[in-house]
Structures are given as structure tokens and as C-alpha cells.
């Protein structure tokens, strides 16, 4: 938010704006990571993240002070992700067999700076792509749970409150997700263990 200029902004409650900018500063990357795992595509993930943040900004005036921001943010984000993906299901269907060539390229390019070990980079990108493909085979509401639990590392209770669903539902969705992923990823696991 460093690019923002005071003069460009129409009058709005200043404390809301400060809160929003702090929120973006703190959570944008995490929300983006969640979005990325939900859609498996950089441009879509960016779009989804921004849409979520814009909704957060728009409902800012209705937020009572003292309400914990983080929980409220994730409630908006998770519901929006599921909602948009459900609606979009008909239009963008990603096949499991379809090679995500551009993505592997993107990932390799992204990580090349961080890691000098080319082999590990390529292997990491391949692994990432395969796991991502498996994730995309899940229904959005199930995918959201497994992304929050296993990729982001949240506890069941936290996920239940983020998504506004009972802990029992988190438990069953996560188990279903893992069973499906286990089947999809069996060849990958075997090849990794055999190494």
C-alpha cells in the first residue's frame, strides 16, 4: 500500500482506511496463498484475493469496533472463494491430465532466485504442480478445508469458525479430502519414497 496517495482518495473514515491498510499489509500474502491453492493459477488467485479484499473494504463501515478482524476477514474470504468457485465451476474445468506447463514455468522462474539448487527447484515445481492438480480435483468446500488445515496449518476449531461450519463438518470434510488426495497422489508418494 506504499503507492497510495492521500490526495487521490475521496473522503472516508480515516481510521477505517488505516485499519484496512494494516489488514492488507498483514494478511494479503496469506489470503493470496489460500486463493492460489484454491484456483491453482496466479492471475485468477490475484483476482480472487483482490475481490475478497475489496469486499472486506466495502463492509468495513459495518464492522463494529472490537470485533476481531482476522476471524471476520477469513469468514469473508473463505465464503467468497467457495462461492465464486462454485459459480465458475461450469466455465473453467481443469483436467487432471492437462499439463500445467505455464505454471511449472512460472514456479521455476519464481523460485530460481531463492534456490541455487536447480534440481531441487525443478523437483519442487513438479511436486507442487502434481499436488495442486490433485487439490483442484476436490469440490471447492472440501478443498477449502484441506487448504486451511494441511497447507495453512490451522486447527479444526479455527477452520470451523473461519468458515462458519461445525467442527464435525471440518473433520469429515478433511478426512474425505485426504482420502481423495491419497488416491490421487499415490504414484507421487511411491516415487518419492522409492527415491
Amino acid at each position, binding site marked *: 500500500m506504499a503507492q497510495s496517495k492521500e490526495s487521490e482518495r475521496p473522503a472516508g473514515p480515516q481510521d477505517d482506511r488505516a485499519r484496512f491498510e494494516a489488514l492488507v499489509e498483514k494478511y494479503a500474502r496469506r489470503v493470496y496463498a489460500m486463493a492460489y491453492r484454491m484456483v491453482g493459477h496466479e492471475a485468477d488467485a490475484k483476482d480472487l484475493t483482490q475481490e475478497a479484499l475489496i469486499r472486506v473494504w466495502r463492509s468495513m463501515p459495518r464492522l463494529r469496533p472490537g470485533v476481531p478482524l482476522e476471524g471476520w476477514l477469513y469468514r469473508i474470504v473463505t465464503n467468497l472463494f467457495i462461492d465464486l468457485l462454485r459459480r465458475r465451476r461450469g466455465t473453467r474445468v481443469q483436467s487432471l491430465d492437462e499439463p500445467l506447463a505455464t505454471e511449472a514455468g512460472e514456479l521455476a522462474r519464481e523460485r530460481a532466485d531463492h534456490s541455487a539448487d536447480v534440481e531441487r527447484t525443478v523437483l519442487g515445481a513438479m511436486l507442487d504442480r502434481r499436488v495442486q492438480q490433485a487439490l483442484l480435483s476436490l469440490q471447492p468446500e472440501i478443498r477449502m478445508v484441506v487448504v486451511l488445515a*494441511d497447507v495453512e496449518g490451522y486447527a479444526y476449531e479455527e477452520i470451523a469458525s473461519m468458515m462458519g461450519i461445525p467442527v464435525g463438518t471440518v473433520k469429515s470434510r478433511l478426512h474425505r479430502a485426504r482420502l481423495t488426495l491419497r488416491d490421487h497422489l499415490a504414484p507421487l508418494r511411491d516415487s518419492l519414497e522409492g527415491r
Partner: protein
Amino acid sequence: MNHRRTARLLSAYLDAELSSEEMAEVQGHLAGCLDCSAELGELRATRRLLSSLEAPDLPQGFAADLQLRLWRRAPGPWAWLPVWEPRPATALAVLALVLALVSVPAIRGHQHRLRAAEIGPDLFLRRAAQAQARDPLMDRAFVGLVFTDANLRLIGEDPRGPVR
């Protein structure tokens, strides 16, 4: 604890998200069940794969783009009002409704004028009064007046011969 129930609890067991009794029960079952132990191992490996995924960095220009999108619908003092977003379907529906409201009376009026020209204004008026007489809510006196008026005119035109 039976095999099926244990199988359902394996994920939660892996995450230590069960009550202490359930944890102990699953543990007890695992000691004697090779299938469940194997499944637990697979689930653990799957979880490990997922947690090994790296968090992607925010794409270049993320903040600038977000600012742009926010300015486009920047809330001012009217932030509580519903945000105006393009809704093509709604716009089309409204347009169709307006067109119908304007064109239906216009077309019907035109048809009436044509009909009146065709059969003569007095007979047209008489038929219109006849049609109105069927309306139970219509003022009978008024309909009667129109009727009589039209009849008289029709009779008055009798010298010129019968109306077509």
C-alpha cells in the same frame, strides 16, 4: 472400537483432534490392525506433501492493482449505499419493461385508429361501448350514454346509406 469407525477417525487422530478416550481407542485398534496402520501412514504422507507446498509470493504490482480497483469503486460519504455495479441482465429487463409500457398502448391506439377508419367512428364507438358493457365494474349510465349517442349518430347517418 470397530474397524470402520476407526478408519473414519484416522485423520482426526493424525491431527490429535480427538478426545483422549477416542485417541486411546484408535491407538488400541491400530496396534492390532495392519490395514488401519497402513492407511494412517498414507494419510500422514499425504498431509506431509500438502504441508510441504511453499506459499507463493504476492504477484508483482499486487498493491498497485488493488489500489486501482479500490479507486474505481471508492466509497465516499455514500459508502453505506449499495454499490453500483454493471448488471447487464437487469438493465436488459428494465429496458424491455420500459419498451413494453411505451409500445403496447401506442400499438393498441394505432390499431384502434385503423379499425375506426375502417368501420367508421360511430360504429367503432358503439362496439367499444358494447365491449365495455361486459365489464361488471363499468358505470352503466356512462355506457348507456355512449351507446345511445353512437346509435343516434348511426341513425342520423342513415340517409347516406348503411355503414359499411
